[in-house]
């Protein structure tokens, strides 16, 4: 049943122009970066910068907007013999498949064409996970609020917090407590932000040389062992699962 609902949502989204615009935006950014720069690694670095900002923003705002725009459709579905779990999961699958499709066409394809490498694959995987976690967050923001304006407002705040404020706070924290041994604390803190987790996974590819040094044995052990990669991946999965579980809990009790 989830997949049936997902199917109809995907058909519906594919007919709208917003997603096409997003796909084109990503494709143009990625392709022009690769065209402009002879050095592939530098291209990947530039794309990382763009990706870590734009992908979460569009994912969360688009998913929230779509959630509210299709609110009446949700009402219609709820009045039908379908469980609410399937309705919300169907919506999630539908929306995330559509946005992922845009991501694949806009980012993965250019990377595969111009920079097929471990780093490229890592970026594809983390970008996809990031998309999913911000759609999860969008569902949480959508179910916890009642109207579209509040929902989108909350979605933007979530994005702004994770994309910009969070790292600023971490930096401030480091300035204040830099004298203490903070290596372990830093790993814990970073895991509180899905964007940072994605960033770390890409760093492990792009800047392994720097991560291996300077900050002492802990990062080296942690990241050198592959444990770091597993850790980041699992936490990113949690960032997909937990907001969605919360959204489901709210949605099950929600009055439409």
């Amino acid at each position, binding site marked *: 049943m989830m997949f049936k609902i997902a199917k109809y949502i995907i058909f519906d989204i594919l007919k709208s122009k917003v997603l096409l615009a997003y796909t084109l935006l990503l494709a143009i950014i990625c392709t022009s970066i690769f065209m402009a720069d002879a050095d592939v690694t530098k291209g990947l670095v530039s794309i990382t*910068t763009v990706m870590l900002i734009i992908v979460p923003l569009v994912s969360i705002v688009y998913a929230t907007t779509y959630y509210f725009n299709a609110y009446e459709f949700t009402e219609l579905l709820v009045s039908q013999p379908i469980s609410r779990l399937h309705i919300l999961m169907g919506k999630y699958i539908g929306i995330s498949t559509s946005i992922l499709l845009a991501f694949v066409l806009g980012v993965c394809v250019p990377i595969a064409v111009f920079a097929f490498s471990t780093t490229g694959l890592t970026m594809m995987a983390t970008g996809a996970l990031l998309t999913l976690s911000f759609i999860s967050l969008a569902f949480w923001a959508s179910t916890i609020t009642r109207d579209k304006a509040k929902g989108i407002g909350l979605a933007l705040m979530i994005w702004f917090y994770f994309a910009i404020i969070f790292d600023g706070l971490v930096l401030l924290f480091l300035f204040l407590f830099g004298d203490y041994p903070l290596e372990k604390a830093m790993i814990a803190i970073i895991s509180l932000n899905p964007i940072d987790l994605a960033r770390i996974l890409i760093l492990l590819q792009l800047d392994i*040389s*720097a991560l*291996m040094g300077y900050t002492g044995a802990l990062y080296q052990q942690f990241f050198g062992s592959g444990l770091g990669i597993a850790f980041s991946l699992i936490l990113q999965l949690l960032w997909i699962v937990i907001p969605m579980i919360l959204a489901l809990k709210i949605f099950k009790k929600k009055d439409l």
Partner: protein
Amino acid sequence: MRVLLLVLCLFIPEMLISRTIVVAPAGKITSLKNAVALAKDGDTIIVKAGKYNSFNTLINKQLTILGQGYPVLDAGFKEECLTITAHHVKVDGFIVKNSKTGAMRDYAGIRLHHTAYVTISNNKLLHNFFGIYVSDSRNIQILNNECKGSAIQMESGNGIHLWKSNHITIKNNYVTGHRDGIYFEFVKASLIHHNLSEKNFRYGLHFMFSDDDVYQYNTFKNNGSGVAVMYSKRIKMTNNVFKENWGSSIYGLLLKDISYSQISNNNFIRNTTGVYMEACEEISISKNNFNNNGWAIRVLANCINSKFIANNFIANSFDVSTNGTLNLNHFEHNYWDKYEGYDLNKNGIGDIPYRPISLYAQIMEQIPQSVMLMRSFIINLMDKVERSIPSVTPESVKDVQPKMKPWKNL
């Protein structure tokens, strides 16, 4: 006259027609030691394939000793294997293995002491404490050897170890699994080239108090602590590759108290720090490639009059870092991939200067933990702002003529 003839008849064969002595496991002579005892200066000893015990065989005559089919000289972990004290000796084509290990003496596979014009070539030195150990010697050739240490840290000395020597050539050797791959102390006027030194516990090349040496076309890869060149003058380092030397305080190339030296046309790839310079003076660093390093170069503030010219800096996490100011050093005509200036007059040189020390690099100096924030939006933003309105990064460190495109064929 007759007497003279008689003397000539007796001695000329001895002096001019050198003899060849064959050692074989099932032959008349079954050990190198016996062969050396029988031989005279100028003789050739041929050792056939087979396994021979060799407990500190002393070569004290001018001999050419050739292995056929890689005969094995085994010291059985009891002694050194070969010691050469005569001039004009050549040892070629042996497997020399299992020297004794220990903290009391530097036991070696092949030891050269107080000698000259010796060639050690095409040997495989396996599981020796030290591989080839040269002291108080001159005009030595060490060619095409393979030194593989035990790969156990406590039982590893240096692969090729030189002490108080001069005019040494070390060419085309492969060293791995030792403490230091190649070790120089008080070695002058020597040439190290086309060697590969990798996966040694400490340094790929360790260089102390050795002036006027050249090393080129070597590869130093994935060594425990990279390469260290210290307390020396007039060193020329060209066309080498330094790669994958990873870890805190591990450097592709560590320079400490080096002066009047030249570092050019080298490749520094994927090192935590490409080049680290401490108390250096008058170093010319030019035409090198720095790719994918954590820090391409780290120059401490006690370095003076060094020039960084026409290098490529590509895909490094940080290009330059320092612990203070670098007023007395000079950057020019380098290619920096992070440069975002423009070139209105199309002369290939950016119109605004590039500041290779980013604000974030400065922050990293203070708070190493902030490595975790690399490439985050906030850091990128701070760096961008700092580049447009510099206030914290040292004004002195700038490349006023940054290249727009990378240098080719470096």
